[in-house]
């Protein structure tokens, strides 16, 4: 594999972590809820996924239980923010704080342990193509499924009745209720879906992308996923593009080292955060466009009373 192929293939793999989590958060936000607990959900499920895979040797079990743990943690958010009508920002932070603690607790006997990453799914014939072959057709199966999922979610949100239901709940819950959509049920379901995908993102990070356990290994990737939803102005395709961009940036450290650049590693580690801030400022500066694309009731408490 040439350096370029290695870089592009790595970008796709790194982007998968961001994309899985961001797709989940996108669906949650489309239904009008802001769940800032993504980092915590990813941390818990990364620990669960690693421990289960380490003990059973099965990545499938690791993913399944990581997904389940993501759903369980997300339900804490749902109960507090939807049923108990709490402030969503504070609830998400609380879930995040608890999640980081749980993650450290679950993984504490496994610090620095490693597992083997499963073999890539090499697609016959196509993988022999120059450049494109190794980049697009020699990846882990989760990478293919994630990008496929992005297409499915994009289509569902814009072209189906389910998507219409989610969007109307996110725009104007009292109107959606009047139209007969089960507002609470839909919101619980989107939060659970977000938890499931954050769970898969965590499992992918700890068992496939870097198959080793270190406390704090999610390292802000959940927060970048939240930022990606804003970058993509709540549009699936743009979110996927943003995930690829950040996949590339997060490889910057490796690339610069391999080229022998004399840049302090801390500066390179900061790069994703710096870029996040700059892109966020660039995208958000058009206030009208942000207002147009953001779900209208995003972050607002819906207590079932009539309209506003």
């Amino acid at each position: 594999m040439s350096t370029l192929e290695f870089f592009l293939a790595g970008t796709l793999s790194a982007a998968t972590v961001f994309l899985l989590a961001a797709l989940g958060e996108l669906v949650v936000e489309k239904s009008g809820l802001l769940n800032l607990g993504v980092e915590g959900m990813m941390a818990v499920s990364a620990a669960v996924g690693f421990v289960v895979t380490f003990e059973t040797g099965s990545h499938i079990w690791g993913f399944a239980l990581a997904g389940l743990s993501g759903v369980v943690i997300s339900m804490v958010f749902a109960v507090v923010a939807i049923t108990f009508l709490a402030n969503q920002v504070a609830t998400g932070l609380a879930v995040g704080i608890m999640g980081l603690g749980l993650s450290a607790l679950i993984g504490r006997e496994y610090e620095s342990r490693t597992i083997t990453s499963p073999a890539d799914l090499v697609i016959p014939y196509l993988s022999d193509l120059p450049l494109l072959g190794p980049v697009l057709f020699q990846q882990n199966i989760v990478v293919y499924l994630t990008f496929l999922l992005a297409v499915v979610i994009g289509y569902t949100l814009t072209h189906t009745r389910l998507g219409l239901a989610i969007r109307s709940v996110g725009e104007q819950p009292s109107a959606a209720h009047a139209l007969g959509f089960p507002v609470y049920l839909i919101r619980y379901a989107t939060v659970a879906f977000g938890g499931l995908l954050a769970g898969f993102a965590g499992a992918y990070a700890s068992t496939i992308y870097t198959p080793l356990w270190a406390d704090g290994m999610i390292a802000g990737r959940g927060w970048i996923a939240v930022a990606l939803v804003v970058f993509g102005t709540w549009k699936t395709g743009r979110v996927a593009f943003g995930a690829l961009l950040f996949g590339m940036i997060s490889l910057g450290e490796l690339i610069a080292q391999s080229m022998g650049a004399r840049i302090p590693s801390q500066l390179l580690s900061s790069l994703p955060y710096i870029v996040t801030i700059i892109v966020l400022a660039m995208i958000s500066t058009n206030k009208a466009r942000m207002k147009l694309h953001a779900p209208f009731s995003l972050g607002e408490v819906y207590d079932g009373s009539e309209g506003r």
Partner: protein
Amino acid sequence: MQLRFEKRLHQSKIMLLAAPFIAIALSVVLSCILLVVLKKPILLTFHSFFIAPFENFYSITEIFLKFGPLLLIAQALAVGFRAKIWNIGAEGQMVIGAIAASAVPVYFVDSTSGWLLPAMIVLGALGGMAWAAIAAFLRTQFNANEILVTLMLTSIALQLLYFLLLGPWKDPMGFNFPQTVMFQDEALFPALFSGVRLNVSIIFPILFTIAVWLFMEKHYGGYKLVVGGLAPSAAGYAGFSSKKAVWGSLLLAGFAAGIAGMSEVAGPIGQLQRSMTSGYGYSAIIVAYLGALNPIGIVFAAFFLAVLHIGGDVALVSAGLPISAVHIFQGMILIFYLSAYAFVNYRLRVVQPVTQPDSAVSS
């Protein structure tokens, strides 16, 4: 039969007072389950948390040592939270405050001037404010979400700290540990009593609390801030500037966190090192909420969380309780508090199912 929340006409004062206690009680019950799962002794753990910290004078002074930074940062954060300005990067503002203050003893290693400490206080405050100002600028000029910006700035601040400690500021005689030289006595706050780490910097959180209380309760500016948070458009009509609220609350938090960071390196730690923040920036968010964003409530909440910090250290030694369990407990308290808070604004009502006159909808 069905239960649903119905909005109260006025906030329930009783629930407002009871909510934190309900949250703590529920968290204690749930932690018992966690302790059973972890096979840790329940009574010994609770003794470590709630009795041992008060058993001797030294330990009590340690509680106040943790109380200071928590109180200082939480008071400032609460002002912003009331105005719905979500600065969750106090941790990073604290780090930059500590770095800025540490520049003085790092570059003037041999100085014994009486100006060292005042210079460090000023630089610490300015450092924290400068870091917070980035978020305020991006929010007011570019509409950039301050939650994400302050959080990302915290990660960047930590990387800057590691860079300095591994590179230019590393103690040449420090056996390659990532830390600066130990500061000279003139760059440290004098202890309040001999033999304890509690020092005169405890005066900052106390003065700051009084100032915030006066501002929020007695001053028109505090009122404007709260209105801006509750009803931004109404505040706009009344001519209250949301830009001022963003700048004001972020600079205030940067100031407080900067002083807190400075007080850590010029106090109990005595040098700049990796783990200098002890997570105060995040714990302070919990303190602010548990204190109902009220300056007086926050005093009690900060004290409680300080006891938890000390109790966690005791339980680590006595019961082998991992420190992560304390973080889980903190998160749990906030989760239960936010749930219990529903009863402040709402009451539960039993709704008898009414047969829906659904003909109008379905036809």
